[in-house]
């Protein structure tokens, strides 16, 4: 379990984060989302005991990160943003050293190395020099290192950055499988990643938490708006015009996705417009291929939350 209480960190006069508080339950996967420089890495560095907070504290698996730093650090597996690897060691040597560093006994280290090598699919490269591995494999070695001592809490800073798409998918699967046994905090600025692997999302901007909720709740909470997505065959301009005239519709956008006319209709959540829209399409003799409701996508929420000031200024 992680409990952060009013974490604040100043670099000189500049506040990197201010009053960051949140709780993560056992086995939960939390996505830490924010633009670059929002304070994600700073928060993680405080939680892992790398850097002290200016004020506030956090409890990791029952240990206070300030007064019981050594025990708290022992309860965390940490993958920093730049994966810290000794390039002149083999994967196995490196994991052995990390196990000793985390005060595991020898027999345990031996069995756990086999476990994590399996889990992170590193079998082929277990005896290769780390310096010779590709970025994706290095990332996996980083994850293997973090989970080696079976810590109750995992902190992963941008775990899927800079690796190729197929490895991203595999890495996400690995992380997802870690939830349940571990409390996981992962930071990212890749939005779909959060909805894919996280139970809850925590959005941070300019050093402050701007939203924190279950991924699906966030959209409805924000929502004085819901979306209806329609695929309709017919003249796009005319369809747009007709839909816009329906009462309750706020905005219609049209995309031509591979020969399919897709319309995204933002509307008032108070009334369900699907019946009315279906009736209109049939009446005009257009081919209705799909109609469904959709919450705001995470991208929309994110942009709304983190760019509100700028749009206010523009308006």
């Amino acid at each position, binding site marked *: 379990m992680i409990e952060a209480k009013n974490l604040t960190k100043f670099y000189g006069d500049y506040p990197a984060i201010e009053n960051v508080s949140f709780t993560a339950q056992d086995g939960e996967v939390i996505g830490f989302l924010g633009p670059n420089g929002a304070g994600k890495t700073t928060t993680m560095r405080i939680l892992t005991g790398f850097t002290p907070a200016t004020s506030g504290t956090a409890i990791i698996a029952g240990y206070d990160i300030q007064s019981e730093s*050594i025990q708290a650090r022992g309860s965390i597996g940490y993958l920093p943003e730049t994966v*810290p690897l*000794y390039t*002149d060691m083999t994967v196995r040597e490196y994991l052995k050293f990390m196990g000793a560093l985390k005060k595991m006994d020898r027999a345990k280290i031996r069995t756990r190395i086999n476990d994590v090598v399996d889990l992170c699919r590193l079998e082929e490269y277990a005896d290769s020099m780390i310096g010779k591995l590709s970025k994706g494999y290095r990332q996996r070695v980083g994850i293997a290192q973090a989970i080696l001592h079976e810590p109750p809490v995992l902190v992963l800073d941008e775990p899927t950055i800079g690796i190729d798409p197929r490895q991203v998918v595999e890495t996400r699967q690995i992380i997802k499988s870690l939830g349940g046994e571990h409390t996981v905090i992962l930071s990212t600025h890749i939005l779909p990643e959060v909805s894919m692997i996280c139970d809850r999302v925590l959005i941070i901007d300019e050093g402050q938490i701007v939203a924190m909720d279950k991924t699906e709740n966030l959209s409805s909470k924000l929502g004085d708006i819901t979306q209806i997505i329609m695929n309709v065959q017919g003249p796009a301009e005319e369809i747009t015009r007709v839909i816009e005239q329906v009462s309750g519709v706020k905005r219609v956008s049209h995309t031509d996705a591979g020969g399919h006319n897709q319309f995204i209709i933002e509307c008032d959540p108070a009334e369900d417009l699907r019946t009315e829209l279906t009736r209109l399409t049939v009446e005009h003799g257009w081919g209705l291929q799909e109609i469904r409701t959709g919450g705001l996508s995470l991208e929309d929420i994110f942009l709304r939350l983190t760019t509100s000031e700028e749009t206010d200024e523009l308006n």
Partner: protein
Amino acid sequence: MSFFSIKVIWIKELKAYFNSPIAYIITALFLALSGLSFALSITGRFPEASMRGFLFGPIGPIGAFFLIVLIAPALTMRLFAEEQKLGTLELLLTAPLRDIEIVLGKFFAALSLLTVMFGLTLYFPLLLYWFGDPDLLPILTGYLGLFLMGAMGISVGLFSSSLTSNQIVSAVLATATLLLLWLSNVTSTLGDGELPWASLVRFLAMSEHVRDMAYGVLDSRDIVYFISLTAFFLFLTVRAVETRRWK
């Protein structure tokens, strides 16, 4: 402080030395140069069965003591600088280890390698016994002096390494510091030795404190000098590592 934690770092660094050519190159260089000064000192016009030539060198100051000024920085330059460059310092600082355990582990690793190097020169005194009749005491105090000055050289080098992520900068800084500490006694002769700080500057010179030991004189002041300056630089290193956390 736990010995176990220190040992983890100690062993890792020792392995790292022998996985790279650096330990072999430095050992070879040290044995060649100190062997040369030993050979020259016992083959001169008035050969003498002692280790003074090996320790202080028959030509200029290039004996084993002075070689520490060059070797210690070469051994210590990567210890912290490389961790900072690779980002692995973050790994060490978030592991359940105290900063001082990390510093001491690295210190002992470099010191044990240096001790092995000194150990490899033990055939010099054996040769002296074989062919002559040397005094035992200066040999013992001479090696003690090497060990103490070696420890201090490593603590200075470790401190330089903790200040930068560039190994070259670390090595140059450590060599410069050690060179000043070695030579600072010469400044005391400026102005007929009447300058106000002359005696302090002279006291800070490493070369003054090993001289007596090379002659078999064991003075507590010399021992205190080396141990306290070694501790001082190790303390500075711990503080420097600590400030890394704030950046």
